[in-house]
């Protein structure tokens, strides 16, 4: 009979981007590997976490060292759910110019959210826009 690991859950307050990212990425990678996520899934999730935390620190908290970013994860054997919350005022995700439009193609920024949406199964910004929820479902999951 197959044994099932309990869900991995974490709820962390991060004060600094790079050290926060390292600790989160290592813990999530270990949890995913233990629950049978393949290399493609690990790549997608790593990228989405990187982009979302960079956005939260840089754009959400606007680099304010007195503000934190809250990272939550809930990973079981069929899906991985993440929430990234900053302490900024939020934003309207519809206001991000589409970087693939001809007139925006040469703008050097603004592609992080697009990558997150491409790699994750579901992505939602919670009003006022300072909480990002994202879910990755294993391709074989119903």
């Amino acid at each position, binding site marked *: 009979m197959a044994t099932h690991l309990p869900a991995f859950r974490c709820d962390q307050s991060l004060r600094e981007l*790079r050290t926060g990212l390292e600790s989160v990425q290592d813990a999530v990678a270990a949890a995913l590997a233990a629950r049978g996520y393949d290399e*493609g899934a690990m*790549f997608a999730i*790593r*990228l989405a976490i*990187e*982009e979302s935390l*960079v956005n939260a620190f*840089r754009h959400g908290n606007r680099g304010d060292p007195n503000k934190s970013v809250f990272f939550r994860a809930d990973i079981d054997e069929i899906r991985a759910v993440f929430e990234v919350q900053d302490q900024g005022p939020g934003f309207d995700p519809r206001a991000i110019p589409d*970087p*693939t439009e001809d007139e925006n*193609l*040469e703008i*050097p*920024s603004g*592609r*992080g959210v*697009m*990558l997150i949406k*491409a790699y994750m199964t579901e992505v939602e910004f919670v009003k006022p826009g300072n909480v990002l929820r994202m879910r990755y479902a294993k391709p074989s999951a119903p």
Partner: protein
Amino acid sequence: MAAPSSHISVRKIDAVTRIDFTDRNILDELNIHQIGEELLKCVESEFRPKVVVVFGNVEHMSSAAYGTFMKFNERVKSRDGQMRLCEMRPRVHEGFVITKLTRLFSIHDTYDAAVESFK
């Protein structure tokens, strides 16, 4: 002769400047900024540079890096030069496809193919 650098190695091969990344991950904003500075230095004294950026070592790249390559491409063009990218791993290449930056950059499978495209 290889130029010493923390994030890239630069070689001049015939008329082509070959740039390889020494890092597997191009993620950290400070590193990306340093890479940008190093790239710009590569062509500062060149006229009509032919530059090939080799991604063979790169496993992960964040979206912040795209802007650096775009600025470098502009600098090369401003010197009447040409830039090619090559040897991307499938997942790194996928990022360029998703963001449609394949329309902005000339991307080739191999270094030789990139050099050949200058002719």
